């Protein structure tokens, strides 16, 4: 096991910068997720750790060893990095049975046939595929193939395991189940995991830390709660969960806000000096309450109600401002006039 250090990584593809200014230190045994929309550079970063892509600048170290450093003319090829990797398409070899698939890394290491099959059986046991070794990949379901890929990555006791959107080809139910299984596996083996996904729920369910990326740059690094509750910028706030952005003007005494699109309704809130006179009030739907119409508050009309079972999602229109609100109960119907009450403690500004 080992940690991974990426220092000032930059990757250019024919004039296009896929990853820039990327610095990250991953501790031994940590579960870190690279999260971002497609094209944000997360897979490129992962492939630079694996060694399939050579960075243009910067350095990558696994454990104590520098594996990529163009300035120092260091490049260790993937086959010498002792890394486990799980691919989006599983990449289980169709011409080998399960046991041979899993034992392959040990075959390369010239471990005797009996020993490597014994180890492969053990690892298959670990991913709940005990006794399936003689089958061929086409006889397995997608979820089982993904477990084979996990077993093959684990068998070599890798310094670090890289998972590239491993669950995106599975159906929703299985995907949720596998999240917990992967997390459980990591706890049991203590392996360092770097996980790439565009699915925030996946990231939040498993990660010790999340790295949010956009356009090749790190937007924020933090624990799940930090990312959700204290997003570092507008992109992170928008990308993680739902959020309302409401343009406001700050009063002269800086003790209240005026919502511009809604007839300059005033909300009392002490605004810090550094924010300027025009702010983007950001507040999540669950931090807003709806009450019976009352003249004192911000007033809006319910334009859409969606019942999800555990929550009810409302779209309110207050003047020109659309506001998403999520409540536990279905209390209002379309066309109702309501008061919109904000939980001021949860306000964020950009």
């Amino acid at each position, binding site marked *: 096991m080992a940690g991974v250090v990426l220092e000032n990584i930059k990757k250019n593809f024919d004039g296009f910068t896929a990853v820039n200014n990327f610095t990250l230190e991953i501790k031994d045994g940590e579960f870190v997720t690279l999260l971002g929309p497609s094209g944000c550079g997360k897979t490129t970063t992962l492939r630079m750790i694996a060694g*399939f892509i050579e960075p243009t600048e910067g350095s990558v170290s696994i454990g104590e060893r520098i594996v990529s450093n163009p300035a120092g003319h260091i490049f260790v090829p993937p086959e010498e990095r002792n890394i486990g990797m799980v*691919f989006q398409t*599983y990449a289980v*070899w169709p011409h080998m049975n399960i046991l041979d698939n899993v034992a*392959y890394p040990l075959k*390369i290491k010239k471990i005797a046939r009996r020993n490597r099959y014994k180890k492969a059986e053990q690892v298959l046991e670990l991913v709940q595929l005990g006794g399936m070794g003689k089958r061929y990949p086409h006889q397995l379901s997608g979820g089982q193939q993904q477990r084979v890929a996990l077993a093959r990555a684990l068998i*070599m006791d890798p310094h670090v395991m890289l998972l590239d959107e491993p669950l995106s080809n599975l159906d929703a139910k299985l995907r949720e189940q596998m999240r917990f299984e992967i997390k459980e596996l990591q706890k049991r083996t203590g392996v360092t995991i770097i996980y790439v996904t565009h699915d925030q729920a996946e990231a939040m369910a498993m990660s010790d830390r999340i790295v949010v990326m956009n356009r090749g740059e790190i937007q924020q690094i933090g624990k799940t709660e930090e990312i959700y509750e204290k997003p570092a910028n507008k992109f992170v706030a928008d990308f993680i969960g739902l959020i309302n952005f409401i343009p406001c003007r700050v009063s002269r005494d800086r003790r209240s806000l005026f919502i511009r699109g809604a007839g300059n309704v005033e909300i009392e809130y002490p605004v810090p000096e550094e924010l300027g006179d025009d702010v983007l009030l950001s507040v999540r739907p669950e931090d807003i309450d709806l009450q019976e119409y009352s003249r004192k508050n911000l007033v809006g009309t319910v334009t859409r109600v969606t019942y999800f079972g555990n929550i009810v999602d409302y779209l309110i229109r207050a003047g020109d401002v659309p506001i998403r609100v999520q409540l536990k109960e279905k209390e209002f119907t379309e066309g109702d006039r309501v008061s919109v009450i904000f939980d001021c403690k949860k306000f964020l500004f950009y």
Partner: protein
Amino acid sequence: MRTSKGDVVIIFSLVLLAVLVVYPLGSLILRAFLSEGEVSLDNFSKVLSTRENFIALWHSLFVSIISTILATFLGTVLAWIVARTDIPFRKKIKTGLMMPFLIPPFIAAIAWLQLIGPAGYINSIYMTVKETWNPLFVIYGKWAVILVMTVSGYPFVYLTTLGGLERMNPSLEEAGQISGAGTFRVMKDITLPMMAPTIGAGAILVFVSRIANFGIPAVMGMPDNYYVLTTKIYRLIDQSFVIPDAQAIATAMSMFLMIIAACGLLFVKFYLRGKEYTVISGKDVQPKLVKLGKWRYLLFAFAFLVILVIVVLPVIAILLTALTRAWGLPPTLDNWTLENFRYVLFDLDMSRRAIRNSIFLALSASTITTLMGAIISYVVVRGKMKSRQLIDFLASIPYSIPGTVFALGMIIAWNRAFWGRLNIYNTIWIILFAYIARYLAYSVRTVGSSLRQVDVSLEEAAWVSGSGWLQSFKDIVLPLIKSGLFASWFLVFMPTLRELTISVLLWSTGNETIGVAVYNLQEGGDVTSSAALAIIMIIVIFAGNYLIKKITRGEYGY
């Protein structure tokens, strides 16, 4: 497909296929088992017991197997170089290596004869330089046949393997690499085993096309008395007035040919195709290219040399011959002339007729097969009844069996008058019928694949809007499969224009094709005229290929 109109289409298709496919093949098979008016296996025992007939069978297997092995090796290596290494000018090399597909095998054979034959350019140059009468080498007969079969056959393996390597999910190889295997270990443990069924399928296609080939053994083997099944059948039919039982023996022989070819194709269809690994590819990751370092130029030189030797040199040889005043004169500038071109285009009646006939045949065959292909593939793709499998099967037979066999079936079936006076034997119509039947499979496949992309709901939407079946076919289906129809037309036009195997058995004076004209001129010793006509053909083929590639944006053509 709806009720009565659908039935009409099906019955129409079945009748057409019965006349074009079932009748000639049925006649052929019946003839093979008939001896002196009784059902027997006599004809087959005559093939196996007569030495020269048996030897033709053995020769067919020998040259086909050897050239298949060589072509498979060459095709696989070249496909790997193009798909997986960082050689310079990869795209150009990739296209260049497909070019042998465009040169008709019998023209390739003629070209190679002029290059390496006993009186070929290489020997002439050698003898002139060395001032000797002893040629450097004499390649004739079986080794010449094997050589040309190899160089004109490898593209089958090259194309299938290249396609397989390009479609292969790169993660599979990366998974090997991350497991600790180096480049060559990944190739041995993962790439090659996964490609094996694909390479095998390509190899069998080479084998089947080699054993069915007529042009190469006709040009390279027959003058040396080296006969294979196709040329032996040709010879027997040619001499059927002299040799007793010739037709019966030829028929039995064609059964052997058909069975060998059918076994190969069935093996591919039912065994190898099922084994081919279809691998879901997720993200669009470029397959990683092996960085060859200094080997890069060596492999580039190899691929370049292959193109030079296999495509460029033979074409130059035949072009030089076409430009030379008389065969045998050194091809120096003062011996150059355009006289041969003028002769075949404006003077020689036979070649002028052949050009006219071939253009007529190609135009009508491609138009008729495309129309029929549209109807039949509509039945096959949209139909729900069992008859659609029968129709699909019948339409694919004439292309799956060797051309020589099918032509023989046509002879036996149509060599008589119907209703007293209708007789198409010894007319151009028998060739047209044969072409339509043989190339129907092309248009059924091409139109069918574009029809499969038109979702049935598009038609249903038209029906719901109140349009009838014919109306919706015209308004909705036809415009959407237009490119498929166009491709089908061209895919039939090109090979019928250059066809030899069938027409060489079915032609008669006045009904020659270009292929027959080139072949007869060559056989008759008028090598320069033959070469001039061949060059004209090559130019038309390359121009046509370029055109179809441009128009279909690379979907068809090489």
